[in-house]
């Protein structure tokens, strides 16, 4: 069945004749000077004159090229970061036991949270009916580290060693108070599902240097407590063409599902088959112009190339022992956070644009001291190792590393406060994240919270500001990367977001 496919397809059957004619006329009109003149006049008058004077009357011409125009302008400026690795700590890690040092709390164990601090702000349904809100200081000690003399909790001894590479933002705030909307808000810029994830926007706007691997790859730790669910729409493409969705790589025999050839098929004529299929799809796409057909074609091709590129990149057998020692003992067990960090580094070396790791289990409504200790132990060494590994390979220079969850936690204990055990409820009004690497100032802390880490007192950074800054570092003006859907243009930061210029190097 190999060599009889040179002839191009024809729509032989008579019912297509009508369609063929229509197509020819359309082509003719759009490509000849008549269409050209109309186009010229339209854009001259429409945009420049009428658009300003009588904006409400004229409707924008629906052109297929609008999106192309937007994409062609990207990158808007020279990017500092060529790729991103986003370590998402799902569940909402407590800022009290990690980065936000609050020494004054130490003497306030068990005292009620002053009303002047809370100011009647809303709480979650889980603790809103508590009669008292006893404040609780960190169970763990803090000390200063690095040249920057940054206070870091004893739970993060390895992160403390790379603190001079980090830009710690202590004043992130979000709008959502529960996991699903908060994580969706962080990932897509909107609390309701349906918008594209950050990685999808990046993939759509910037494309990839490496056509053999997806632009947006997702790794989920298998060794985390699955206290809050993750769902694939968090790395979904929303309304963007579907080749921009995040592709999850799993540990084990089948890293990417449905990628292997079916049993009993040697795959030798796969390439030819796909070429033939893509011709068919192209032909189908011509009359309908559905971008999803285009997406399907490119996904088939990507899957074919991934059949060789994925096993190659997943194979860590040629990594020296020294690397596994750097990332810690877990790193030899595929699918753990540490192993995923090694994998992330390998993917970044292959110029994958956006790698996102998820590590669940930070939702400590109760049993926080023990829970935080375990979570930090599972992630601390590998996180620090990733920074060091990227640095020595010269990759930190143009790779942006991000660490953070979807919100922080309250100063008061949820449930009964015991002498050696407590919990903390969700707190979106302030929490800590850090960035490191390309284009951000190393060794600084940005933003401040009050003595209770309840309100922000200096330099607040909204989630949209964070997203705008991330896009800025990638060379994209967040206000100009838009996509038209259901009659309006959408962007990651919706109608908000300011680049946090103070943290840019």
């Amino acid at each position, binding site marked *: 069945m190999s060599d009889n496919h040179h002839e191009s397809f024809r729509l032989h059957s008579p019912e297509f004749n009508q369609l063929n004619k229509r197509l020819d006329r359309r082509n*003719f009109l759009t490509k000849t000077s008549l269409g050209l003149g109309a186009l010229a006049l339209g854009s001259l008058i429409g945009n420049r004159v009428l658009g300003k004077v009588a904006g409400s009357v004229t409707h924008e011409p629906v052109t297929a090229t609008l999106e192309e125009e937007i994409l062609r302008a990207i990158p808007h400026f*020279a990017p500092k970061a060529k790729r991103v690795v986003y370590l998402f700590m799902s569940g909402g890690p407590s800022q009290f036991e990690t980065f936000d040092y609050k020494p004054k709390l130490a003497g306030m164990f068990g005292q009620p949270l002053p009303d002047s601090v809370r100011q009647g702000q809303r709480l979650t349904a889980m603790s809103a009916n508590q009669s008292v809100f006893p404040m609780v200081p960190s169970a763990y000690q803090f000390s200063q580290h690095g040249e920057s003399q940054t206070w870091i909790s004893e739970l993060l001894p390895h992160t403390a060693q790379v603190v001079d590479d980090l830009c710690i933002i202590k004043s992130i705030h979000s709008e959502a108070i529960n996991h699903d909307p908060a994580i969706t808000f962080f990932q897509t810029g909107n609390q309701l599902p349906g918008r594209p994830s950050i990685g999808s926007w990046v993939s759509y706007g910037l494309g*990839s240097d490496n056509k053999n691997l997806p632009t947006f790859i997702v790794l989920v730790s298998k060794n985390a407590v699955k206290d809050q669910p993750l769902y694939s729409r968090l790395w979904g493409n929303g309304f963007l063409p579907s080749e921009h969705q995040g592709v999850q790589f799993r540990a084990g025999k089948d890293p990417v599902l449905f990628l292997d050839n079916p049993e009993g098929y040697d795959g030798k004529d796969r390439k030819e088959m796909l070429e033939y299929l893509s011709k068919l799809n192209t032909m189908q796409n011509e009359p309908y112009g559905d971008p999803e057909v285009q997406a399907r074609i490119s996904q088939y091709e990507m899957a074919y190339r991934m059949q060789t590129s994925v096993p190659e990149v997943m194979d860590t057998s040629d990594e020296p022992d020294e690397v596994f020692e750097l990332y810690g003992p877990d790193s030899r067990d595929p699918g753990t956070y540490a192993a995923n960090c090694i994998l992330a580094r390998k993917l970044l070396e292959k110029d994958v644009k956006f790698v996102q790791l998820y590590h669940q289990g930070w939702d400590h409504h109760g049993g926080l001291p023990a829970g935080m200790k375990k979570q930090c132990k599972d992630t601390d060494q590998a996180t620090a190792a990733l920074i060091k590994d990227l640095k020595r390979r010269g990759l930190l220079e143009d790779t942006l590393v991000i660490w953070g969850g979807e919100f922080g936690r309250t100063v008061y204990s949820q449930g009964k406060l015991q002498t050696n055990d407590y919990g903390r409820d969700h707190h979106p009004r302030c929490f800590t994240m850090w960035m490191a690497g390309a284009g951000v100032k190393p060794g600084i802390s940005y933003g401040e919270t009050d003595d209770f880490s309840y309100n922000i007192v200096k330099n607040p950074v909204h989630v949209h500001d964070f997203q705008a800054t991330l896009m800025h570092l990638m060379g994209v003006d967040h206000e100009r990367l838009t996509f038209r859907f259901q009659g309006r243009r959408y962007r990651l930061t919706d109608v908000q977001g300011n680049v946090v210029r103070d943290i840019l190097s």
Partner: protein
Amino acid sequence: MIIRIILSFNVTEFIGRFHPVLVHMPVGILMLAAIFIWLAKSERFESLRSAISISLFLGMLSAIASCVTGFLLSKTDSYEEALLFKHQWFAIATALISLVIYYLHLKNRETKWVAAVMVIFVMITGHLGGSITHGSDFLTKAFSSSGNSGNSKSIPNVQETNAFSTVIKPLLDAKCIACHGPNKQKGKLRFDEPGFISKGGEDGSVIVAGNAAESAMIKRILLPKDNKDHMPPTEKPQLSKQDIELLQWWITTGAKYDLKVKELPQTDHIKSILNSLESGKTDEQVVISYFPEQTVGKAPEVAVQQLRDRGIAIVPIAQNSNYLSANFVAVESFTGKDLQLLEPVKKQLIWLKLGNMGLTDVDLEAVGKLPNLRMLFLQNTKITDQGLPQLSNLSELQYLNLGGTKVTSKGVGQLKGLKNLRQLYLFQTAITGDDLDKLRQLFSNTIIDAGGYEVPKLVSDTTVLKAPIGK
């Protein structure tokens, strides 16, 4: 089939590209027509009257054709919008005036004043068009280059000299005095003598000794460039970051005219800037930028397409920039010949990633011929010391990654002529210990990273929960 080819051929772009040829016609012909109109007034040139009609007609036609082609061209590439907007509408106005003047001429009306207006419009349109292609500072460059020499002269033994006259005054001379000096005193402000500086301008004092942030001068310098109060004016040569820091330092330390540099308090940062004045280094050598400031012409499209066809990711650095980055990461069965494809884009190519390719010493010859490279990734390739000297001509190089190769300190040492090199990565090479120290001495301005990071076992790895907490 042929029809298909013709249809798919991009007519718009093709027609648009005639704009640069056509534009010169209305400029010449309409100007000439105006000259004819004026000369024909005198009896000596009476005979020119008969030529007016045809020259106006041709000028009008070519003006309209220029407008159409110009409009099409503007759609094929992105130009600076504000300039383009002005150019476009001045051009349309010019074409309309040429229509009007032709009509008036046919009706035997007086046209000489309309002709004068038309000449002005032609000149403005032409100037704006030139600004789009050659840059808006094209005309004024001749003046500004001489005034730029402020800081590039070296100051020997800077700590012993007078802070104002050797550090601050040259800055003011270079960037301020043209408008605030003996020749012009905009805002009644002069910077040429200490007395005038202290006196300030029409809005009062511009310097608050000891407080740079409150000084009007610094405030206006720090305003965003698009603010109309920004100084120096946008079209004039700007102060560099280092210049501003020096000014701030001088004002913060009291704006003294009679003290030596060493008598003023200095932070480490200021000290390093001051010391850099000693060696006459300019800003470009101090600040790392992987992105050149000067512009470059467009890369030949055929060559770019060839590179893409080969699977090389070739991407413009930014919008409105012709600089390119090339990444070989997805290239299958790489051979040295692939590097030849880069030759036609050598002026534009500034970032090149060849890591993990089967690159050998022979291939470095082609890499060494890419003069504008700023970032070069050669990690995990088969290159050795023998190949490295071929890179010594890459004078712009700022980032070089040689990790995982067989190079030794001897080979790397041969690159010490690379004055701009700021980051050198030698992870997983044989260079360690003493060799590394020697290299660090040799490359005093370069951060050399050879790995060697450890994650030591920490006592706190086995933290036990302290109980009871709190009290």
